[in-house]
């Protein structure tokens, strides 16, 4: 008998535009001592299954059909009070963001002891003892001291360990982990996944691991359930799903995952999700508006030279300069970007890679160092006209497709604004024509100009963002995590588009990402950043095959392997 058995589950959310079916006729099971990976892109309904099992669906959502059995006993029809004795005691849950999962004003001890006392008939001192043991088991050093501390005194990875301790503290039979490592860095992610694996084996736990990340699944799960738009598409052993998927959706989903072990030219066309029409086939730069910019010839030298660049942020102001505290976001880094190449910057959160982008573009002023772009001094140029000339050549595609477009402007106005500000078109008519052309170029179609950003999906918004960046006829395009907010199939399309544009427009790219496989697919050369330092710069293949610096070795060693 399976530990958890879900039969024909259907979850509905009645709303303004009719009833939305979030989970549609899903049946699956989990055995004890086994990790079931529940994978799918956003909107697949994978988190909803976990919430439905726990009886924690957000109102007005409800499970309208099907049944859930825990060890043969039906639990989906239990009363709220009976359900409470199952939550925590028999099924534990781990949330995505460790920064918000803990009550900020109570100590870790309070939260652990409270949970233990709610389910077990033990004395206060026994509960305390147990709490300390738990913290030790999840790998928190000096547990007896740290237990008296508050959540804000722990780092993200440590907090996720506390969350796991809380989920395990009354020894449940099943754990539902909802994107447990999505908010964490690669190196921490590997540790947390290992912890979950160990707990699963040593305690004979059943685990449902909900994630969008194929790499995490490949490394952790025993079996995989693939979901798409509320339906279960395919269910099988991890090696079968990864190596020989049967369903077309699974095949294209896996094809879209950037391989970590080799570089491919373009991602295969994916049959799923939104359309991928690109008008790049018959494109002639010589005759096109985009070719009319300043000097588009490819010189062989460096386009951008960065020397001893530094950037400090004031984090604590004071009247006396000696009392002020600064954060060194960039400490003395130097690198070149050659014309026509893609230079990658990779690093974990807080490594300063995005700050580099913002200093190069002039959004943040540099604290020290030199920067030259095609012979123009980027730091000491005071002449506003010359500055704007250079700025026009350097544009950026941002990380968050939702906040990078002004929601109160139509797409046409957003894409036309750079031309309007820099007077790159003769008149409004020409501007509109160029906008239509650019929107065709990025694969959206010219009708998009009349709509507002909220009418588009994340991937489409990134296309708009690219069209806007192209509207100044730039030579240098900075992409700051352009796909980290996107689903993997959409990511493949956007990365293909960037590669196509680079080929056709002879663009130079600075590509910033925390995602090593993506970096491997996109970049010619890569710089690795850590705490504001550039620890290693190397050709991409050399970096992945023979990392020199110890940090690079750790980073690449901890990267989830997803080989095809």
């Amino acid at each position: 008998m399976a530990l958890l058995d879900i039969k024909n589950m259907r979850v509905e959310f009645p709303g303004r535009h009719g009833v939305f079916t979030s989970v549609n006729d899903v049946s699956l099971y989990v055995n004890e001592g086994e990790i079931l990976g529940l994978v799918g892109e956003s909107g697949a309904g994978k988190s909803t299954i976990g919430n439905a099992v726990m009886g924690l669906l957000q109102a007005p959502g409800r499970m309208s059909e099907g049944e859930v059995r825990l060890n043969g006993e039906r639990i989906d029809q239990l009363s709220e009070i009976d359900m409470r004795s199952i939550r925590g005691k028999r099924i534990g849950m781990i949330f995505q963001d460790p920064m918000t999962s803990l009550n900020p004003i109570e100590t870790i001890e309070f939260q652990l002891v409270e949970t233990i006392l709610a389910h077990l008939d033990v004395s206060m001192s026994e509960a305390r003892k147990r709490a300390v043991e738990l913290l030790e088991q999840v790998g928190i050093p000096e547990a007896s001291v740290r237990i008296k501390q508050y959540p804000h005194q722990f780092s993200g990875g440590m907090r996720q360990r506390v969350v796991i301790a809380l989920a395990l503290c009354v020894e449940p039979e099943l754990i539902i982990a909802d994107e447990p490592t999505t908010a964490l860095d690669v190196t921490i992610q590997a540790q947390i996944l290992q912890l979950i694996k160990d707990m699963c084996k040593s305690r004979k736990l059943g685990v449902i691991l909900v994630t969008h990340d194929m790499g995490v699944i490949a490394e952790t799960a025993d079996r995989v359930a693939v979901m798409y738009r509320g339906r279960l598409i395919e269910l099988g052993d991890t090696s079968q799903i990864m190596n020989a998927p049967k369903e077309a959706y699974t095949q294209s989903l896996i094809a879209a995952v950037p391989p970590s072990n080799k570089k491919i030219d373009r991602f295969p066309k994916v049959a799923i999700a939104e359309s991928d029409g690109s008008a790049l086939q018959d494109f002639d730069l010589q005759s096109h508006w985009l070719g009319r910019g300043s000097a588009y010839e490819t010189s062989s030298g460096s386009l951008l030279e960065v020397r001893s660049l530094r950037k400090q942020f004031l984090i604590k102001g004071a009247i006396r300069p000696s009392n002020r505290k600064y954060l060194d976001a960039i400490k003395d880094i130097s690198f070149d970007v050659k014309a026509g190449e893609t230079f990658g910057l990779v690093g974990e959160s807080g490594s300063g890679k995005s700050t580099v982008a913002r200093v190069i573009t002039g959004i943040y002023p540099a604290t020290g160092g030199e920067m030259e772009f095609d012979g123009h001094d980027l730091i000491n140029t005071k002449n506003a006209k010359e500055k704007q000339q250079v700025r026009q050549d350097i544009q950026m595609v941002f990380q968050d497709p939702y906040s990078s477009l002004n929601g109160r402007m139509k797409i046409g106005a957003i894409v036309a604004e750079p031309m309007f500000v820099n007077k790159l078109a003769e008149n409004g008519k020409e501007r509109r024509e160029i906008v239509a052309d650019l929107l065709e170029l990025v694969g959206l179609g010219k009708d998009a100009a009349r709509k507002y950003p909220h009418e588009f999906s994340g991937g489409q918004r990134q296309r708009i963002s690219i069209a806007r960046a192209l509207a100044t006829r730039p030579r240098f395009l900075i992409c700051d995590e352009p796909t980290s907010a996107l689903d993997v199939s959409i990511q493949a399309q956007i990365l293909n588009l960037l590669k196509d544009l680079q080929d056709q427009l002879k663009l130079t790219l600075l590509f910033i990402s925390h995602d090593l496989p993506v970096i491997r697919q996109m970049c010619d050369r890569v710089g690795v950043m850590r705490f504001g330092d550039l620890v290693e710069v190397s050709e991409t293949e050399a970096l992945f095959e023979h990392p020199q610096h110890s940090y690079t070795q750790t980073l690449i060693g901890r990267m989830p392997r997803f080989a095809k």
Partner: protein
Amino acid sequence: MDMVKRAFESDLFWSFRHSPVAIISFVVAVTLILAAVFAPLLAPYNPFDPGSLNLMNGFSQPMVPNALTGDSFLMGADDQGRDVFSTILYGMRISLFVGFAAVIFALVIGIILGLTSAYAGGRVEAIIMRIADVQLTFPSILVAMLVFGIAKGFTPVHLRDQMAIWVLIVSIGLSDWVQFARVVRGAALVEKKKEYVEAAILIGRGPLGIVFRHILPNVLSPVLVIATISLALAIIAEATLSFLGVGAPPTEPSLGTLIRIGQGYLFSGEWWILFFPAMTLLMLALSVNLLGDWLRDALNPKLDD
């Protein structure tokens, strides 16, 4: 046309159609505002024309013909024989005028100072927000009273009554700008951090272009909510000041002044002199407040449940 179509298809309009409270308060508020605007056409008497007043009509009961003159008044007449209904229409004109003008005054100051402090940051922001903090320490009604007292002191005695309305607008407006400045600053700080602002810098927009073309349109919805609620508060503040005798002059009675007059007849049984102005004030403030409350929920989808 496009705008109108968009407005009718918007979520806001949908939420409006599905909220009976919003519809009713909208109808009540608009009716009262129209009645005030067209007071000269609607009022059966001109309460400020001494020629039309008849002291013998004093204390006429509502709907009952006066025993001496045979005149009948919908809501009765006051001590001097003025038609209460007419004085309410004219009084509402003053209350609404002061309310709207004070809110616009506060809104303009608040938006300018809020945007300036959010965008400029540093010392400018520190000074503006410190002033706001200090002012916020005092309840707005007290600030309005102070400003009123001072302004009154500066106005020459023979101009005091003429200037009173404007002084009232300035004092209520000055007591209320902090709300707008804080909300605008808060919203603008959030917007300023968004990537579309960085994109605007990159394409070469100057600070004015960024503030007015990009940030301002994105902070207007909370401003709209605060403006609606502030209108209700300003109407109440005006009524309170006039009730305390430090607001609208007796020559131009607002609703608050009428209530002040009516209070004197509470114990002697002439309830209508107090009751009708009080109910009008209540309906006005309540309908505007309900609209503001609905607007806040409608524009803040995360509060939906």
